[in-house]
């Protein structure tokens, strides 16, 4: 298992490197630089700024410096947020992104699996269709439309929940952003779960178990849910990735600090260091999450475990 994990990690290094290199050069070729403002800076000051940020050397030298920096864990300065380095910013934003994403992830899994199981057990009944419809709406109403509606209803009109902000991490501040972030994944997970549950329920061994007279509830939990979870688990890797990118919108609507918001601002402001830093960070994170998902999958799936 360890060997597998290692091999898996090693094989992603070239991809990381290629993506990093491409981003690095594409960003430099793009029109507009970090120091282009409404008010032109005198040439002398621009030269100083470029020297300060190591932008005055030949491109290849800059690239080499950057690459060796990354290997040493130094992602360089942020050109726009002057008082912080990229590593500073990512480590400030990371806990917020993690708490938001983690809560949404947990909610999506719990509700999604629950809804999927209920749907499968009541296949083609009105409660199945009801769940499907509610879940579908969560999937297709864009989050930037749903979020302001929920803010208006629960924050402004009813006054039950805060409209936005982190609020020192109070649970009430997390409710709306977490729901918005989790909804599409509740939908996908519940559909996957329903499908695979129906399949498992139709499989021979369940029929056997049922024939032997094991109580229905026990049967579901003991025999059906675990194998039915496999496709859901395999979706979790991509889902984690979607959650991270989904937080771009949620963070900016709710005014939460977090890496998604930093990325958007950096991209708009040509903050090369920050853009590269966040892209690298996202890639490493998604690769790690996928690896974890693979390992969990291997633990769950007897076919794979046997090898």
């Amino acid at each position, binding site marked *: 298992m360890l060997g597998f994990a290692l091999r898996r990690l090693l094989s992603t290094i070239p991809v990381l490197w290629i993506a990093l290199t491409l981003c690095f050069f594409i960003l430099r070729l793009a029109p507009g630089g970090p120091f282009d403002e*409404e008010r032109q800076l005198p040439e002398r000051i621009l030269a100083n700024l470029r020297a*300060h940020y190591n932008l005055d050397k030949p491109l290849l030298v800059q690239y080499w410096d950057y690459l060796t920096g990354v290997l040493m864990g130094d992602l360089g300065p942020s050109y726009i947020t002057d008082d912080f380095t990229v590593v500073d910013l990512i480590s400030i*934003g*990371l806990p917020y992104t993690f708490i938001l994403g983690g809560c949404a992830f947990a909610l999506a899994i719990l509700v999604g699996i629950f809804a999927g199981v209920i749907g499968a057990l009541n296949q083609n009944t009105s409660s199945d269709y009801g769940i499907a419809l509610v879940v579908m709406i969560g999937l297709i109403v864009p989050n930037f439309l749903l979020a302001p509606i929920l803010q208006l209803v629960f*924050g402004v009109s009813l006054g039950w929940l805060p409209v936005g902000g982190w609020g*020192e*991490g109070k649970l009430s501040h997390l409710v709306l952003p977490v729901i918005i972030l989790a909804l599409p994944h509740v939908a996908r997970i519940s559909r996957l779960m329903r499908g695979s549950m129906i399949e498992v329920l139709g499989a021979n061994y369940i029929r056997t178990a049922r024939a032997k007279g094991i109580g229905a509830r026990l049967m579901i939990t003991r025999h059906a849910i675990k194998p039915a979870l496999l496709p859901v688990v395999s979706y979790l890797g991509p889902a984690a990735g979607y959650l991270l990118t989904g937080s771009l919108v949620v963070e900016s609507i709710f005014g939460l*600090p977090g890496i998604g918001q930093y990325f958007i601002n950096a991209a*708009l402001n040509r903050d090369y260091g920050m853009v590269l830093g966040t892209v690298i960070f996202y890639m490493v994170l998604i690769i790690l999450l996928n690896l974890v998902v693979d390992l969990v999958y291997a633990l769950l799936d007897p076919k794979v475990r046997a090898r």
Partner: protein
Amino acid sequence: MPKHRLTAFFLSFFAAVLLVAPAYAAMLNLHNGGDPASLDPHKISGDWENRIVGDIFEGLTTEDVGANPIAGQAESWTISDDGTVYTFKLRDNANWSDGQPVTAGDFVFAFQRIMDPATAASYAYLQYPIKNAEAINSGKITDFGELGVKALDDKTLEITLEQPTPFFLGALTHYTAYPIPKHVVEAKGDDWIKMENIVVNGPYKPVEWIPGAHVTTAKNDQYYDFASLKIDGVKFFVLEDQSAALKRYRAGEFDILTAFPKDQYQWLEENHPGEARVVPFAGLYYYVFNHRKPPFDDARVRKALSMAINREVIGPQILGTGELPAYSWVPPGMANSGESSEVDWAEMPYPEKVEMAKTLIAEAGYGKDNPLKVTLRYNTSDNHKRVAVAVAAMWKALGVEAKLYNSELKVHYAEIRKGEFDVARAGWLADYNDPVNFLDLLKGSTSNNYGAYSSPEFDKVMDQASLETDLESRAKLLTQAEEIAMDDNAAAPIYFYLSENVVSPKIKGFEDNAFDIHRTRWLTKEE
């Protein structure tokens, strides 16, 4: 990734969840828009940064409730008869937040630092009236001792100017003139600005900064006027989404909004009467013509395009907040200015303007078979988009085919500076209270003259004005310069900006002013 930071964060996070957050008696929650680039006064350039930094630092003079210069760290000053030597007497009780006295040396240090090319301060040019400032900033003089800022003793500072400058006391309220704690910068270097090191001399001091969320300040007990501060601290919230900000205001999470969606103005007037403060602001929204490129070097084409813009529709209808139409270059109400000189066709009824514009376009050689094609560039923003869409439709009536092109602010300005445009959107907000600040945008050699308008006559009058010491004749010369540019239709002024604050009735002492500067020390909050 530094692990201790994470651990520290989680600890503080859980501590904050478990404990009740320290209850501030009067915490001001202010929607501040963007994230500050820095708290270092020499490294900032935006009004959202000014709101924070102007609360935590204070210059020799500072802004009163109406943004007029009053005594700040200096309690008094004298000005020499020729208007070029200012001698300031610092307050005896002006201290840094660590208890050290603010000295004249701190000011000398700050002025030398901002002019030092190595600091790369983007706004240094604002203090160019100081003797030798420009030369030092551009590297022509390397001995900082030659800068016209001298400490006569610990509490006496002498500033010598290149020439008399009527707006200098105002310029000293600007963040480019704030002192820097020499003893801290020398001890900590670049890290002096980190939250754990920073030392300030303003009414408030920063206590927390979470990028993307907020900057929090608290009262500075070393401030000379500490006793009269009514607000205990400010949370400057980062939130670019204006409609989300308005919702948070309505839910009571924000006390002041510094911008709101223009479409909601009427709604605000009906549902929260008097809370939206929309007042003229010293700023100009305009379209630049690219003089480098035919046919925009043709005065007839420029005049036609400018005339066809129905300015009366843009403010009230398209934007919805009623911006004042601009037919002149210098916003009304600027100090040291004479009569405003509008374009001569300003009063003409709109249909006549269109007819005349059509004739001009035809004279310039464009018609049905040979339509004038224009690319209209603007930087990404809902309001700029709306104005551009409307203007393109207005030009369509002349038979002009306008294509819209938008890009981010950084790209927009980089490319229009290179001259890669036909017509482009630009805007200017006053740095200091003087018409020169706006007229300089059209001066031949300056880098903010995006369209490369060049008129020797205009430049000559401007140079004359800069040497004129008599304020009245100076104002006349500036008016004359403005007339020249407007007759040339050098660029198309569209409207004068409005400042758009929304202030909760709980907040008292917020006085509207043309510079949109509202320091927290003048405000009170009622619960």
